[in-house]
């Protein structure tokens, strides 16, 4: 299990390697990347900050949920600090025995992360900077 938080770029190969095993026939990699526009405004970059200890505990809880519900191994890396447009701010790899559980686990992990994990995003646009919260209710329960 590889759950990390920090300024390092997301390394897809490392995330995949962290969950791969001969017993798991399906691996999914989710990358959340930064868009260049928000409500019509040009986005220059994003800045992420986090409540570190709580994030690590929440990542562990999400991984445990994915293991219990879907038999999934999970690896996560979320960036902190400045993330440029087009770069990945988060990467989540899941591996399960069969593909249906991999899709379900991947979705569960990102929706839980976006709803509950104490990470904040400050969007820098041509008009200045502002903190943006995730929209509620987009994901599964």
């Amino acid at each position, binding site marked *: 299990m590889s759950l990390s938080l920090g300024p390092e770029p997301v390394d897809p190969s490392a995330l995949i390697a962290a969950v791969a095993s001969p017993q798991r026939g399906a691996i999914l990699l989710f990358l*959340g990347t930064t868009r260049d526009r928000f409500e019509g405004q040009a986005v220059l970059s994003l800045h*992420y*900050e*986090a*409540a570190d*200890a*709580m994030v690590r*505990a929440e990542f562990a809880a999400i991984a445990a949920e994915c293991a219990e519900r879907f038999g999934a191994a999970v690896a996560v890396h*979320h960036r902190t600090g400045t993330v440029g447009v087009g770069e990945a*701010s*988060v990467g989540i790899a899941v591996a399960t025995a069969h593909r249906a559980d991999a899709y379900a686990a991947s979705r569960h992990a*990102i929706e839980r*992360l*976006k*709803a*509950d*994990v*104490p*990470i*904040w*995003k*400050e969007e820098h646009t041509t008009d200045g900077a502002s*903190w*943006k*919260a*995730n929209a509620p209710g987009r994901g599964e329960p």
Partner: protein
Amino acid sequence: MHALTATWFAQLATIRGCRSESVTLESGETLAALYARLIPEPRRVPVRFAVDDVWATGDTPARPGTVVLFLPPVGGG
């Protein structure tokens, strides 16, 4: 000493002008009451609370010597 450490994130750190500060408690104060005292309207945003890195509810009594985190709506992912 009847003080705790308040830790602020995102826009709340901007409003308070710091990320962490020692706060003297008032008698019988809950976390929600402490938040309302320190972040007056109209700048108050919905928050979740944590005490010593463990989730807590607003009706939790504020206890001296703890570290209270005030967590505004999250934006990760």
